[in-house]
Every structure is written in C-alpha cells, then in structure tokens.
C-alpha cells in the first residue's frame, strides 16, 4: 500500500438527527491512509454519532460516506469491517474469561472447527508488525487495559483493515500505556493504515495527530492540515485549536451565550471558602486535588474546564455527597464531615447535571421530589410520618413559582421533559434560604428556551445575594455569567481569572495546559 493522496474514507455532508437534536450537521471530513487524524470535540459535539456511522451501527439521514471515492451505505458492523473500517470503542469489548486467541475467533461461523493454531500464528504476526508483545494464550482478564486495547486494535484490523477508528483511546490508559499506544500508531501509520483518533484532550490531539479537526455542536468547524501543523510552533497550534473549540466565530454560540458579562460591584463578604480540598468519587473514580477558592456574597464563580477534569467530584464533595479532606467554610462555619442533609439545611445547595440519574426519582411524584433532601424534617414529616398536606402545599407553591409545565404536582417526575425536570430540580435547590449554590452544567441537554430560562434564574438568584459556583464545560456560558473564572485541568484548579475582555483567551490558555509561567 502506498500513501496515495486520495482519502480511504470520506464523509460528505453527513447529517444525523435524533428526536430534538441534530447530532451531526453536514459534516465533511477526509481520512487519508498513513495519517493520524485527530478529531477533537466536547461531549455532545457529535463524536459518538460520527463513530457509530463509520462503524455501521447507524446510518446517516443525509449525505454519504465514501470508501475509496465510491459512496457506500454501511449496513452493519460486519459490513464496516469488510470495507476495512475497524472501530475500537472506549470501553473494552473482550470476553475477560477467554484467552486472546479465543476472543479473536468469536466472529467465526459456528459450523467451522476453530483453527486455534492459525489464529495464534496470525496474531503473533500482526503483533510483531505493530510492535506489541501480547501472548495470544493469555487470558484477557490478566492483561492490562493497555494490552487489552492492543488486542482490540489487532482484532479491528484482523480482516485487513485500512481505517482504524479509536474512540477516546487514552481515556483509561496509564501514561506508559499512552506512550505504547503512540508507538503502535506510528507503526500502523508506516503500514499505510489511516487512523481516526478521537479525543477531547487538546494536548493529545497535537501530540499524536498529523491532522486535527474540531467538532463543535455537531458541526465540523475547521481544522489544521498536516503541512500547517508541522510548520506551526506548538503554542500557536494550540492557540489555533483553542480558538476553533471555543472561538467567537460562531453565530449560534453567540446567541446561546445570552449576552455578555457586565462587571458588578460586590460586597466583600466571603460566603464560601474552600481551602486545600481533595477528594475522589468512588463511583467514577475521578478525583480532584488541593482545590482552593472563595466565593463572595452574590458573586458567580465560574469553573471552566473540559469534561472529566475533576469538576463533578468537586461539586459532590461540596454538596457533602462524597468524603473529602480539606476545609469548606460556609458563611463563617466550618462544615466538617460530609452530610448532605445538614449542608442543604444550612443553605449549601447542589444542582446536579445528572438530573435523571441522581437528581430525581423518576417514579415518584413531583411533590415528593421537591422534598427529597429534607426527608423526615418538619414541617413535612411529624414524628416520622409524612404530612401530605404540607408536602403538597410546598410543592404547589414551587410549582407555580418556577412555572413547571406538568399535569399536576402528583405527576411522576420521570414523565416530564428535560426542561421541566430542570425546573423541579432548581425549585428544590433554591427553596428556603439558599446561601451558596453549586451548579453543575446547568444547561446541558436543554433546548434554547430552557437554557435561556435557566441562565436568567442563575443570574437573578446571584443578584439576590446567593454565592454561586457555576461549573460548566461551555466556556461561552461561563464567560457570560461569571464574575471570576477558575480553570480545572486534571483535577487541579490551575488558575483563576477575573472576567473581562481578555478572559476568553486566558481561560483557553489555562485549559490548554499553558500556565502563565510557561507563556511568559
């Protein structure tokens, strides 16, 4: 195979819609042989949909996918493989109790006697070609995640694959694993295999990619071609990618931001002070370390950062959901060990982004969900027995005040739309006398009208004196609402920026891992 200038696979104006969302909007991309094409984008930018169309799991609504210049309708994952498109997903897909060789034979027809010897030999051959050393007779469960990934890559290319799609391949790897993956990709490139490298880490895209493209809001918003990328100094390339990912060029993004930031005079009372806080979420395993900041009365403190850099465990630790070391002081009072109910009562509220997953109990009525964090407390319960009238009166008041659109307060929350669930959630977190509110991605997954309403609500409550922590991966949102902005990278708060005309660039730099010292 020679590195011909014509692409192996091309996407031509590919559009894919799901009810209420356009996941991919006229995306055109070319994937060339012997080239690593880094595809960057936030969660929800349309990366997964793109992959599933290449893998034959889904089909485009409009536009076409061309292999070797000819349009093909990829009917199934099997078909994709036979066309030479192999996909390796983020989560391992091998049977842990079988050996490597046995896993590789799983696709074989059932009537044929398994040719274990042949598979072993071929695996060794492929492993040698790609520079990896995995024993084909090792049980998969005894392999490291990196080794399992290598096996999956070999399997994806088993039938002579020419384009390898890697979905966030570094997400679960150790630094050494990432290095090995880099070496393996180098070998594959040399063999003329095209690689689609999907990631949301800027640095990785630039480390491994020969070509970089950026997806944003389902659209391909631009990229850097190989010639430019090699010629450009790294810092400039980084700045260019940051501009593409978060830049002001998009009209729709501007509209969604809902106006620019206006500097405000704030009282100097520290409502929330966090000092040296560290913690780890037992659920996701992600963690944050040594985070310190304060929020004044009425101030909105934005926390920007790419998803998965420790924002969620930080929010959970502030809410008292997970244990953490360090100090959290609310209005002069040290909060001590984790205790959700107490913190809620004292006025520290947490509006989670996982509204259906943890924020609400879908089968319970709106009224019960409104008091979910006050179970057993007066006036809704007396001596442990619920007082339905009090619960209903409370719910009715909030129902009206927050303009929830539902048949009634006894409707199960699970039957409401996302926007209305968000209203119920905010109603609960804002009820009583909140002092500090932590929002986690408050507009994620909402439509424009509800995004607007939510942002207005955030602004109004802050103006009413509530200290606000706004965690968002949408930089436009953070810039539009915050007074100061902290940036989180790999579990650390790497810097705090005063909001202003220069803030966008500074935040972008911090996100890209360029600390002020390096830049200077």
């Amino acid at each position, binding site marked *: 195979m020679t590195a011909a200038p014509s692409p192996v696979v091309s996407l031509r104006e590919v559009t894919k819609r799901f009810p209420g969302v356009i996941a991919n909007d006229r995306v055109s991309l070319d994937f060339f042989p012997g080239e690593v094409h880094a595809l960057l984008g936030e969660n929800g930018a349309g990366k997964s949909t793109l992959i599933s169309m290449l893998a034959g799991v889904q089909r485009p609504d409009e536009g076409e996918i061309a292999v070797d210049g000819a349009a093909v309708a990829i009917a199934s994952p099997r078909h994709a493989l036979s066309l030479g498109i192999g996909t390796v997903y983020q989560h391992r897909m091998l049977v842990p109790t079988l050996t490597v060789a046995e896993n590789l034979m799983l696709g074989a027809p059932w009537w044929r006697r398994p040719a274990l010897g042949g598979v072993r030999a071929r695996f060794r051959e492929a492993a040698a070609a790609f520079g990896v050393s995995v024993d084909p007779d090792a049980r998969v469960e005894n392999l490291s995640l990196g080794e399992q990934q290598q096996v999956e890559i070999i399997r994806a290319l088993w039938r002579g694959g020419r384009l390898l799609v890697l979905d966030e391949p570094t997400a679960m790897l150790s630094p050494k694993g990432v290095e090995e993956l880099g070496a393996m990709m180098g070998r594959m490139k040399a063999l003329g295999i095209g690689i689609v490298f999907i990631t949301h880490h800027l640095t990785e895209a630039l480390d491994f990619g020969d070509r970089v493209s950026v997806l944003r809001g389902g659209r391909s918003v631009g990229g850097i071609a190989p010639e430019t990328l090699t010629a450009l100094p790294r810092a400039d390339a980084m700045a260019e990618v940051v501009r593409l990912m978060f830049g002001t060029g998009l009209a729709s993004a501007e509209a969604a931001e809902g106006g620019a930031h206006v500097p405000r005079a704030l009282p100097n009372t520290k409502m929330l002070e966090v000092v040296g806080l560290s913690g780890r979420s037992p*659920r996701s395993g992600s963690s944050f370390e040594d985070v310190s900041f304060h929020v004044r009365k009425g101030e909105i403190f934005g926390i920007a950062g790419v998803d998965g850099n420790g924002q969620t465990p930080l929010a959970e630790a502030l*809410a*008292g*959901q997970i244990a953490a070391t360090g100090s959290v002081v609310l209005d002069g009072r040290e909060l001590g060990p*984790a*205790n*959700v*109910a107490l913190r*809620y009562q004292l006025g520290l509220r947490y509006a*989670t982004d*996982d509204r259906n*997953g*943890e*924020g*609400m*109990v*879908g*089968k*319970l*009525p709106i009224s*019960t969900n409104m008091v*979910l*964090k006050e*179970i*057993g407390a007066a006036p809704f*319960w007396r001596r*442990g*027995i*619920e007082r339905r009238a009090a619960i209903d009166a409370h719910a009715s008041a909030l129902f009206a005040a927050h303009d929830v659109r539902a*048949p009634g307060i*006894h409707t*199960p929350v699970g*039957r409401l739309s996302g926007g209305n669930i968000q209203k119920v959630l905010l109603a609960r977190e804002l009820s009583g006398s909140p002092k500090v509110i932590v929002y986690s991605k408050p507009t994620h997954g909402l439509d424009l009208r509800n995004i607007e309403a939510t942002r207005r609500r955030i602004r109004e409550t802050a103006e009413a004196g509530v200290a606000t922590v706004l965690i968002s991966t949408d930089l436009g949102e953070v810039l539009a609402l915050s007074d100061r902005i902290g940036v989180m990278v790999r579990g650390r708060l790497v810097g705090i920026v005063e909001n202003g005309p220069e803030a966008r660039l500074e935040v972008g730099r911090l996100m890209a891992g360029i600390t002020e010292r390096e830049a200077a």
Partner: protein
Amino acid sequence: MTESTEFITGATPAAPRFGFLLPLGLALLPVMAALVAAGLVLLVLGSDPIEYYSYVVQRGLLRWRGLQATVVNMVPLLILGGALIVSFRSGLWNLGIDGQYLLGTLTAGATAPLLAGAFPSIVALPLAMLAGAVAGALWALPPALLRARAGINEVISGLMMSLIAASLTAAAIKLWLKDPASLEPQTLTLPVEDRLPLLAGTDINIGIFIALGLVIAAHTLMMRSATGLRFRILGLNPAAATHAGLGVPKLTLSVLCLSGALGGLAGAVELTGVLGKMQASWHPGYGFAVVPLVFLARMNGWAVIVFVFAFSVLQIGSASAATRLGVPQDFTLVLVGFLLLFLALSEYAGERLRAKKV
C-alpha cells in the same frame, strides 16, 4: 387514599365513561384464563374441573371448618408477605426468607416452652416472638453485610443461607434441643393452654390479628413514613439516595434485617399459635409461595391480604379436593403458576395498549 400514586401513572383527568373497563378486564381476564388452563390440565389428568373447583370453594371457603383452616393458614403467609413488601419495595430481594422463618420458628420453639414455665403467657409469648424476630434478623445479617459492604448479590447469599438454615435447625434439634420424652426429633412442646388464645368458639388464634397488623404496618411504614420513603428511594434510584445524602449501606442493612426480623416473627407467631413445637423435618417453604403473591399484589399490603386469602382458600380446599378426586396435592402450584403467567401477559398487553393511546 392514593397510596400507590407511583403506579397510577396513566390517570387522565377526563377519563372516558367506560375507562374502568380496561383495568378491570386486565385484572379479571388472566384469572379466568388461569382457571380455564388449569381446568384443561385437570381434564388431561382425568378429573372434572368443575367438580374440582366447586370442591375447592366449598371446602376452603364455604364450610365453616374449612374457612377457619384457611384463616389459620394465612397467618405465616401474611407476615412473610409483610417481610417481602419491605424488602421488594426497597429494591432488595430477600429470598433468604425461608431460612429466616425456620430460625425464627426454631428459636421460638426452643424458648417458648421454657418461658411459659417461668412467666405468664402474656409475657412469655411476646418474649418468644421477640426472640424469633431477633433470630430472623441475625440470619439475614450475613447477606445484608455482604450486600452493603461489598455489593454481593443478596439473592444468592440469601438462598444459600436458607439451605444452611434447613440443615442447621434439624441438626440443632437433634443434637441439643430434642425433647427427651418424644420419639420424633422435636423441641419441647408448648402446652396448648399456653399458646396464643383462640377466638371464642373457633379454631382461629389471635395470631391472625398480629399478622394483619404486621402487613398493614409494613405497608404503612413503606408508604407513609420518612423511613419508608428512604427505603423506597433506595429501591427506585440508589444514585438519588446517595445524592440526597441517605447512607446507602446503612439503609441496605436496615431493610434486609427488618425483613429478616419479620421473617423470623412469622415463624414465632406460627409456633406459638399452632405448631407448639418445632420438628426437625419442618420446612414448609412458605417463602416461595408468598413471593409470587407479593408480586401479584404489586407490593401493596392490602392487596397482599386479598391474594393470601385467595391462595389459602385454594390450598386448604385443594388439600381436601386432592384426596377426594385423586388430583396431586401440588396442583395448587400449577394454578398459581398459570395465574402468574397470564397476569404477566396481561401486564404486557396493558402496557402496549397504554403506549398506543399516548
């Protein structure tokens, strides 16, 4: 009262005039279908289904003695139903209920005769019941701890605990608790006059009131109290329980131990009311009879009472019918099996119909 709002999700404000017909049909049709299907099996077995059914109704329900036997038969089933309501509504599957029942029966059998010798029965019997409940809770503890600490499935460990319980109770009776005066391996016998008092002029002991009280208490606990709401949230959405600051491991332990305590209590009430002694071979397997009933009742306490009553009529009636008509004793289970099958089908059909309307 709308104690089951979480299930009545499709109640539209302006229901059509005959809107009640659909749910009624969905409830009655499967019962009819089960009766017909079981009748066909009876035909194959060479018995007259009409005769069988009328015999069942007559012996289990219409005859005074039969009705009394039915009511007495309900006692342990009802309490076990309460135990399962607590567990199932919390999304935990305490299928070790039979083991907890056996341990409760054994403990009451070992303690009640001794206590009755030392105290008046108004003190002795509650103490024996308490002992039975504690034994049940302790027997539920290992699976509960495994589940709460290490996330180990409580179904498997509970079932294994039941197997151990069956052998352990038999061994304990044969080795340590055997009544020396008896040929059979069994505990000392609680004298009839020391047992739970009978309702005047009947064979029914006041255990039925204890049982009814416990089922309704379990139902009320789950549907009306703060503790019950915490338990239900654990079942409906464990992540939300964590989010709302409810300690999931502690809740898990509480649910399974409470359920185990009720399981043990079921045995203790039956022992102090009817059995009087625990025999080494006693292993009625009530748990698996009650599990489907609780599901049919959708974990609603009031409905559990109705289903347990119907099941009891069937059991008592078919016991007589079986000897009379030569139908196997276990034919009741065939009928219950059909009922479950058809109810599941009607559930599915109902979902489809509702989905179509929306």
